[in-house]
């Protein structure tokens, strides 16, 4: 096979990368979460106070719970949008398939920040949407909850992550051999039964991968709540950011990060097992 020199040369860069940018930061974060801050200085005294604070202080638990609720809502909304879109494109778009596919992908090239600001101008109290609602007399004064609310965060994150959900679902739908769909019809199943009994089960790996993307990416998001969340839309990453920033509470911030990391890894582990159960091709 390959010589040892070759193997060494090929593996040194990736290993270096993983050590420098993955293992080392995680180790530092993990260590920090067991340290403390006294008189504005981080002292390397091992303790569990940070984790205790996490459970005792209702602020952190509350925000973490809200974050998971927002992430779940984003996941459901982007599945509700992404799946039908992927289904339509894969099965019924005919010759326009390539074009439509590109149109779904194009927003991914536009900066997240730009899209976030765009929503700000749409949802604001003198924004485009409020202007329209008043123009058609649905609202008589600006609707407040549109911006700076969990609703706005879910809306923006759904907009941003729907392509991420769309992509794996589309890929798994494209992988379904078309004769299977014909076989189902041939055996007497109409479109609805064919969808439920053949297409949906066979696209499950893509659906799970998409749902995981949406949930995990939303869980760690801090830009959307920063731009459109307001105080009621604050998410856990904003807390972490402020703890590492102005508050100078690195150890507590690290403890929260470890918790989020734990939730994420657990989730990835579970969905991977589920995906394996549903993969047949």
């Amino acid at each position, binding site marked *: 096979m390959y010589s040892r020199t070759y193997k060494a040369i090929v593996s040194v860069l990736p290993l270096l990368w993983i050590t420098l940018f993955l293992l080392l930061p995680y180790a530092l974060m993990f260590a920090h979460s067991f340290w403390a801050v006294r008189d504005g200085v981080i002292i390397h005294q091992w303790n569990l106070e940070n984790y205790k604070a996490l459970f005792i202080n209702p602020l952190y638990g509350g925000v973490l719970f809200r974050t998971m609720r927002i992430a779940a809502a984003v996941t459901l909304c982007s599945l509700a949008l992404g799946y039908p879109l992927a289904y339509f494109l894969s099965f019924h778009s005919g010759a326009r398939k390539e074009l439509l596919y590109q149109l779904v992908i194009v927003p991914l090239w536009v900066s997240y920040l730009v899209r976030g600001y765009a929503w700000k101008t749409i949802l604001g109290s003198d924004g485009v949407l409020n202007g329209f609602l008043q123009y058609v007399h649905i609202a008589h004064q600006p609707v407040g909850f549109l911006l700076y609310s969990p609703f706005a965060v879910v809306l923006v994150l759904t907009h941003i992550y729907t392509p991420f959900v769309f992509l794996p679902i589309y890929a798994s739908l494209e992988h379904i*051999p078309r004769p299977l769909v014909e*076989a189902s*019809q*041939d055996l007497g199943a109409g479109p609805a039964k064919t969808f439920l*009994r053949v297409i949906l089960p066979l696209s499950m790996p893509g659906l799970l991968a998409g749902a995981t993307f949406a949930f995990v990416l939303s869980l760690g998001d801090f830009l959307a709540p920063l731009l459109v969340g307001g105080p009621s839309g604050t998410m856990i990453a904003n807390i972490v950011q402020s703890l590492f920033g102005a508050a100078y509470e690195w150890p507590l911030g690290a403890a929260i990060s470890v918790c989020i990391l734990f939730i994420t890894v657990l989730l990835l582990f579970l969905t991977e097992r589920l995906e394996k159960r549903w993969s047949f091709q």
Partner: protein
Amino acid sequence: MSLANAVAQQPERIIGSPLLEIRAVAKRFGSRDVLKNISLHIASGEFLTLLGESGSGKTTLLRLIAGFEQVTVGEIWMAGERLDSLPPHRRRVNTVFQHYALFPHLNVRENVAYGLRVKNTPSSEIHGRVDEALGMVKMRDFAKTKPSKLSGGQQQRVALARALVNRPQLLLLDEPLSALDANLRKQMQSELKALQREIGITFLFVTHDQEEAMALSDRIALLRDGALEQIASPREIYANPVTAYTAQFIGQTNLLRGEVRNGEAVCGGLRFPATGESGAALFSLRPEAIFPSGKRLLAATDVHFRGIIRKQIYGGSSELLEVHCGDGQLMKIRIPACGPLRGEHEFCFSPRDAVRVRE
């Protein structure tokens, strides 16, 4: 009388009333005519084969009947009911797909039960019928296996059971044996034929393999460039091909080009009595209808010619000779195996075996 003609005159298997009627069907994809004005009846209980090269339209015709494609022109009727306006899931037709198309997420039993389940058949009935269908194809021991764990032949049997369990009026088979290796293929052919006899379901079988078509079918419909070239029993289509294309596609043949005048055909150096209208003519003469002159009893009408053996291909029980006749005509001659031959020999054939064909 020659052998080929004698067998052609045996009575055909008696078959029932028409089950499927294809009435002047045409199919166009864009600007391409895939099927041109096809009319065809399939009798109840018949084993009919659509035979043709790839691109001849045979699979398209099958897909029109299954409902996966829509006819451009014409109508398809089955048992007194207009078929072509129904969606595929409402047609009492089932298909065995070329690559089986078994559902990978379901085991063998669930695959076979699929058709009954989606039609809300009571589960007590499903159980018995699935067992029966699996028994029919000898796959009961594999009921809990996933398709990916089965061999090609086994997948083929499951695909067959999955279709037959629904007791369709018509079973469509789209080159079902083409993915199997030669030995298994022969075995599946005979099992398929036996099964069809036993259950009496009408089979419409698509293949590009003329030997397979000959071995299985009650009748063969030969398609060429989207048009029906000839439809007849295997014996009839072999003995009496209507066109040169049919004669060449089904088995091997020699095409003799010449002229008919005053009841006599003149093809190069060959002269033999021929009926039909005068003018340019084309005859098909099967290689096995030609004999070395010494090897058979002389008949007064026999046509004799001499030729030089150019090639001898040994085929076990028989040999195929390529013989150069004086006039430039190359003749393929099949004779019983006889050991190496060379030089010039005399051959003969009966004029009755020279079948006049169209271009």
